[in-house]
């Protein structure tokens, strides 16, 4: 019996020739990532548990990105960043990206890709559930809590139960009215919020091959929304080119064997999928955008690790060009690099940033911002009974701030079209 790509990577990390789903094994971790919400408690646990002997297992393998609660006057939130800053200074950490400096990157999952931490064939663990995003680069990545992270910080090791894999194959050319977000929302409607619980989600097929790395990260990012331990896409030329630009040439490329065993295989024809929305209050509450044209919105939000990448803004600009938004529409670039790219990249000869300004959008600095609500002064945070259409990944009660608010998750095309109309709108109207 062959192995899946996930099993091969985990076998390598466990220094074994073969692993079987269900086995509990200790893995060697290649990269540990943390941020301002979970970093301080992780550091506190590490100090308490290792005491005087506390030693970071490998400073070069630790990446710390303040990104969650950044542009706020909340003293306790700012204190969290101070703790990270002091920790980085005390231990002379090479991979700390401080707020208020040139090194500040924005949202950790996008920064990991930009800074070259997403190396194929490796194991990357982060104190954030969306750490599964990195799997787009043919590596095993998953989220953990503070205790597990503190344990890794001191030992470089984590126990893991080898997951079964589910295979998702998308065939057919990607229609111009769809984005990767529609594909993952479609999957969520099919299998539900615990449909992949504890399993690895593997994506492949003609449609996936056509997606660039940022779009692929939208798919793997939301693996956690189905309960998945990880999402993964094998390395191809698009991956190799992205890494080449970062001067990364040495890595292990793994592929699933033809006789690998899957828990289940799901095939889709992308041509048959339509612009898709997740209604409140669950990412699997699927409906087609065209069936929600009665839903009036009060806010539109384009941002986050899922929906604030350059590709997301390219999609949105295509729709917003020459139009005006009817509701407050927030543009929150995931990373500072994305922010700069908005000025460089153009559509019809006009920079994306200018298209958004002309359309009447509100531009914000890079951070997680209102995706998870955040402190009360967070830009774009929902209030009272707001009805928000958003490119983010979760619409649980209260997720974007107000418990009374209703959040509809959609692609950047659908969000942009809806912002112009003031109600949920199928983007095909503008294409």
């Amino acid at each position, binding site marked *: 019996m062959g192995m899946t790509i996930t099993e091969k990577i985990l076998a390598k990390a466990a220094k074994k020739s073969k692993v079987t789903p269900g086995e509990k094994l200790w893995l060697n971790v290649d990269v540990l990532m943390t941020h301002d919400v979970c970093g301080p408690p992780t550091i506190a646990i590490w100090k308490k548990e290792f005491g005087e002997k506390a030693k970071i297992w490998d400073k070069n393998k630790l990446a710390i990105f303040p990104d969650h609660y950044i542009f706020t006057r909340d003293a306790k939130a700012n204190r969290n960043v101070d703790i990270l800053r002091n920790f980085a200074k005390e231990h002379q950490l090479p991979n700390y990206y401080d707020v208020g400096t040139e090194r500040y990157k924005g949202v950790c999952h996008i920064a990991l890709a930009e800074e070259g931490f997403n190396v194929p064939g490796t194991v990357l663990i982060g104190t954030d559930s969306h750490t599964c995003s990195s799997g787009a680069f043919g590596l095993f990545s998953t989220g*953990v*809590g503070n205790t597990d992270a503190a*344990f890794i910080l001191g030992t470089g090791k984590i126990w893991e139960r080898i997951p079964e894999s589910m295979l998702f194959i998308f065939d057919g050319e990607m229609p111009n009215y769809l984005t990767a977000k529609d594909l993952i929302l479609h999957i969520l409607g099919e299998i539900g*919020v615990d449909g992949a619980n*504890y399993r690895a989600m593997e994506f492949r097929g003609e449609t996936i091959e056509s997606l660039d790395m940022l779009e692929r990260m939208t798919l793997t990012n939301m693996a956690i929304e189905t309960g998945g331990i990880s999402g993964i896409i094998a390395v191809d030329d698009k991956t190799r080119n992205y890494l080449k630009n970062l001067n990364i040439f040495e890595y292990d490329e793994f592929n699933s064997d033809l006789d690998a065993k899957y828990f289940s295989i799901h095939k889709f024809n992308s041509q048959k999928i339509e612009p898709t929305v997740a209604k409140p209050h*669950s990412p699997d509450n699927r409906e087609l955008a065209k069936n929600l044209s009665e839903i009036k919105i009060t806010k539109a939000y384009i941002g986050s690790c899922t929906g604030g990448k350059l590709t997301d803004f390219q999609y949105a600009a295509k729709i917003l060009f020459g139009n005006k938004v009817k509701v407050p529409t927030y543009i929150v670039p995931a990373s500072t690099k994305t922010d700069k790219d908005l000025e460089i990249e153009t559509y019809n000869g006009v920079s994306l940033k200018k298209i958004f300004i002309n359309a009447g959008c509100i531009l914000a600095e890079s951070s997680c911002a209102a995706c998870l609500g*955040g402190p009360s002064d967070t830009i774009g945070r929902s209030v009272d009974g707001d009805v928000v259409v958003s490119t983010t990944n979760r619409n*649980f009660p*209260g997720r974007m701030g107000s418990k009374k608010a209703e959040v509809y998750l959609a692609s950047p095309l659908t969000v942009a079209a809806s912002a112009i109309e003031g109600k949920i709108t199928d983007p095909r109207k503008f294409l």
Partner: protein
Amino acid sequence: MNKNIIGKAFVLGNNIDTDQIIPAEHLVYDTSNPEELKYYGKYALSGVPLNESGLPDGDIKFVEEGEYVSNFNIIIAGSNFGCGSSREHAPLSLQVAGVKAIVANSYARIFYRNSVDGGFLIPFECKDKLNHKIRTGDEVEINLDRNILINKRTSEEFQLESLGDIYDIVEAGGIFEYARKTKMI
């Protein structure tokens, strides 16, 4: 490890996510400072919509206004408990509020790991839909030797799933204790 856990049940539905267990705005309290830590108890389960809080009737606050701990110490829930973010503050806040154990049909992976590895509480699994059979406020007992849950109001007994390969970590009290016990660290 305590072989009997007895307490009042608080009953919830399916897919209770970590934003409902501890809303993100409260994640700023210092977990290593006892004065701040108690706020995690105060706000535990404060994100659950009130009509779904304390089933079957709902409208029951898990932690009373002005209090820091709950009158309930065993959570009974449906499937996919603890889905969503990786915040360890979720099992921590339940522990600070006084919760000793959860019995659910299933858990999201990170919440399950965090509960076990952090030694916060024991996440039991049960095939029966207990959240349809137990009422908020019922006194229940978990007997670890027999791996059963007893509803003392009705005297009904329910089989719990074996803790399996995490038993050793649960028994040790968390991943660090387990690693020290096995001379790993």
